[in-house]
C-alpha cells in the first residue's frame, strides 16, 4: 500500500528529468554522429554505389546500375558475351587470406614471448620497452618498407652477411611472398604486442603460482591458465593484425614486386592504371564483407565465451 503510494508521487517527478537527460544525450552525441556519418558511412556508401555503377569507356564510370564489377571477380566476359569462369582474382583473394593469416600467426608467435618478457620487467623498464615497441610507428611506413628492401635486396645487408659465410654472391630475398610476409609481420607486430601485453599485464600472477602449486609445469600452465586468460588480448591483437593485413598495399607492391598481387594492391590497380572503378569498388566491398564475416564470427565467439564466464 505505502509502497505503491510512494511510487505514485515519485513517478511524475522523475519522468521529465529522464526526458531531459535523454534529450541531452541525443544532442550531446550529435557531433559524433555527424562525424561518423561524414567520415565513415558516407565514403563506404559512395564506394558501394560505385561498385554497382557501369565502367565508362575512357575510365571513370556512369551511374547505371550494373553488377559487372562483382561478376568480373569470378567470370571473364568473352568476345561473344559469354561468361567464362576465371579463378585469377579468386586466387588473389585466397593468397591475400593466406598471407594475412600467416602474418597474424607469425606476429602471434613473436608477440607472446615479447609481451611476456616486457610484463616481467620492473615498472620503469616496462614503460621504456612499451615505448620502444611503438617506436616504428613514428617513422613513415614507406621508409620502413624501404629499409627492409635495403636489408633483403641485392647487395643488401642480409645477402652480404651471408656471403661473408660463403653463400653465393648476388643473392636477393626480394620480390617474393617471403619478402612481403617479412615486411607485413614487421609492420603489424606492435599491433599484436600491445593488446597481448595489456592482457598479460592484467593476468593475476597468483593464478600462475596456483597452477604450479597444483602440479602444473610451465607448458601446462601456459596452455591451461595463461593462454585462456589472455585470449581476449590475443583475439584483439589478431583482429588488429589480420584486418589491415588483408588490405595491405605497400608491402606486396614494394616487397613482392607487384607481380604477385594482394587484394589491396588489386584495388589500387583498378582505381589507378586499370581504370576500372566499379571493379575496384566491387573488390573493396567484397573484402569488407569478408572482414565483416570474420569479425562477426570472432565477436560471437567472444560473446559466447563472455556469457559462459
Amino acid at each position, binding site marked *: 500500500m505505502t509502497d505503491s503510494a510512494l511510487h505514485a508521487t515519485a513517478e511524475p517527478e522523475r519522468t521529465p528529468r529522464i526526458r531531459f537527460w535523454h534529450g541531452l544525450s541525443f544532442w550531446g552525441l550529435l557531433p559524433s554522429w555527424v562525424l561518423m556519418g561524414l567520415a565513415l558511412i558516407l565514403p563506404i556508401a559512395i564506394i558501394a554505389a560505385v561498385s554497382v555503377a557501369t565502367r565508362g569507356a575512357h575510365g571513370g564510370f556512369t551511374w547505371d546500375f550494373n553488377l559487372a564489377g562483382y561478376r568480373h571477380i569470378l567470370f571473364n566476359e568473352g568476345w561473344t558475351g559469354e561468361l567464362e569462369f576465371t579463378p585469377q582474382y579468386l586466387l588473389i583473394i585466397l593468397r591475400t587470406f593466406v598471407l594475412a593469416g600467416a602474418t597474424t600467426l607469425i606476429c602471434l608467435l613473436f608477440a607472446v614471448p615479447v609481451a611476456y618478457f616486457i610484463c616481467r620487467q620492473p615498472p620503469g623498464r616496462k614503460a621504456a620497452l612499451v615505448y620502444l615497441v611503438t617506436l616504428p610507428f613514428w617513422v613513415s611506413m614507406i621508409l620502413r618498407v624501404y629499409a627492409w628492401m635495403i636489408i633483403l635486396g641485392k647487395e643488401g645487408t642480409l645477402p652480404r652477411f651471408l656471403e661473408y659465410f660463403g653463400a653465393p654472391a648476388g643473392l636477393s630475398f626480394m620480390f617474393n611472398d617471403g619478402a612481403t610476409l617479412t615486411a607485413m609481420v614487421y609492420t603489424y607486430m606492435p599491433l599484436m604486442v600491445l593488446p597481448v601485453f595489456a592482457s598479460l599485464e592484467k593476468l593475476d600472477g*597468483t593464478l600462475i*603460482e*596456483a*597452477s604450479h*602449486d*597444483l602440479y*602444473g609445469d610451465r607448458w601446462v600452465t601456459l596452455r*591451461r591458465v595463461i593462454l585462456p*586468460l589472455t585470449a581476449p588480448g590475443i583475439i584483439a591483437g589478431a583482429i588488429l593484425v589480420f584486418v589491415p593485413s588483408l588490405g595491405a598495399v605497400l608491402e606486396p607492391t614494394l616487397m613482392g614486386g607487384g607481380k604477385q598481387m594482394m587484394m589491396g594492391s588489386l584495388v589500387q590497380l583498378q582505381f589507378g592504371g586499370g581504370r576500372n572503378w566499379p571493379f575496384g569498388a566491387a573488390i573493396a566491398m567484397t573484402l569488407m564483407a569478408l572482414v565483416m564475416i570474420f569479425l562477426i564470427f570472432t565477436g560471437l565467439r567472444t560473446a559466447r565465451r563472455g556469457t559462459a*564466464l
Partner: protein
Amino acid sequence: MNQNKAIEVKSVSKSFGTYQALNSVSFAIGSNEFFTMLGPSGCGKTTLLRMLAGFESPDSGSILLGGREVVDIPPHKRRVNTVFQSYALFPHMTLEQNVAYGLENLGWNAARIRGRVGEMLERVHMSQMAKRKPAQLSGGQRQRIALARALAPEPEVLLLDEPLSALDLKLRQAMRDELRTLQRDTGITFVFVTHDQEEALDMSDRIAVLGGGEVQQIGTPTQIYEEPVNRFVADFVGETNFLNVDVLETASGQATIRTPFGVVLTVPATGRTAGGRATLSIRPEKINLGDQAQGIAFEGRITNKNYMGGYTHYTLDVMGTELRASRRNASREGDTITLGATVPVGFVPGSARVLAA
C-alpha cells in the same frame, strides 16, 4: 614427533635487497600437526610459507619436506598445496574443473578424478554448485573451493596464507571450526599463516611467533599466551601490562622481584638472573577488581572504562602507574564499578610473569 617430521626448516636466511626478511630460522613441524606461523606484517611468515611452497628459495639454509631436501625442487614437484590469500581460483574454469586441475596434472584417470572431485565438493558443502564459475560465488564459498582444490590431491602438507582475512567476522568464526575439523579428519599437516593472534590461539596445535625475521617462540597456544619468553611475544599475543621491576633473587624458574608499588613477590620467570631490571607482564584479565580482588592487593583509581558487553575494560591508576584490567560481566549487574572510583585491585603472583627486559 621426532620420527615424524613433516617439515624441517634449518637455519634459513633470506634477504630482499638490503632488507633481511629471515634471519637463520629453524624449526620442525610434526606430521598431522596444525602449525601456525604468527607475526606482524613484515615478520617473514609469508616468505617462509612461500619457501615451503617453492615460490621462493632461501639464500642459505635448508628445507626438508618428509625428510627430503626440497630447496632445488620446483613447486609443481612438491607434494604441498596452498590455499592462497586471494584464493586464486581459475576464473575461466568451473568449480569442478578447478578442483580437478591438480588431479589431472598428477595424471589420475578420469573416473578417479570424478570420484575425488565429487567427494571434495561434498566435503565443503558445494556439490550443488559444481558447474558454476568462481565469479558467481561469495567469499566464503570461494574459500571452500580453494580448500577443496588444495586438499583434493592429498598433499603431505597444506599451506594456508591468511585464508580467513577476507571473510567477515561471523563467517571467519565458522571457517575456523571447519578448518580445524578438516585438519583432524584428513590428518594432513596444516601450516597456517596469520597475523590474527585469536585465530592462532583458537586453531593451532603449536604456534611459532615470528618477529623481525626470527622465531621468537614456539609452543602450544597456552604456552605462548601464559608463558611468553620475551616482551615481543607477550605484547603481540593478547593484551598485557608491562611493569618495570627489580629482580632481587632467582631460583628454579621463579624470580623474587620488587614491583613499582613497593611490594616484594615471587613470580614465574624465564631465564632471568638476579640483579638488575626486568619486565613483569601481567594480563588484564588476571587483574581482579572490587569484590573479586584477591592475591596481592592494593588500591587503584578507575581512569577509563570501555564497556564491551560480555566484559568491561578498565584503565587504572595505581600509584602513578597505569594498569589495564578486564572484568567479565558475569551477571546483569556485573558492570557496577564507576569511573573515578577507587577500588581494591589484586592479582595472584603465579599469573604474572617476569620477562627479559
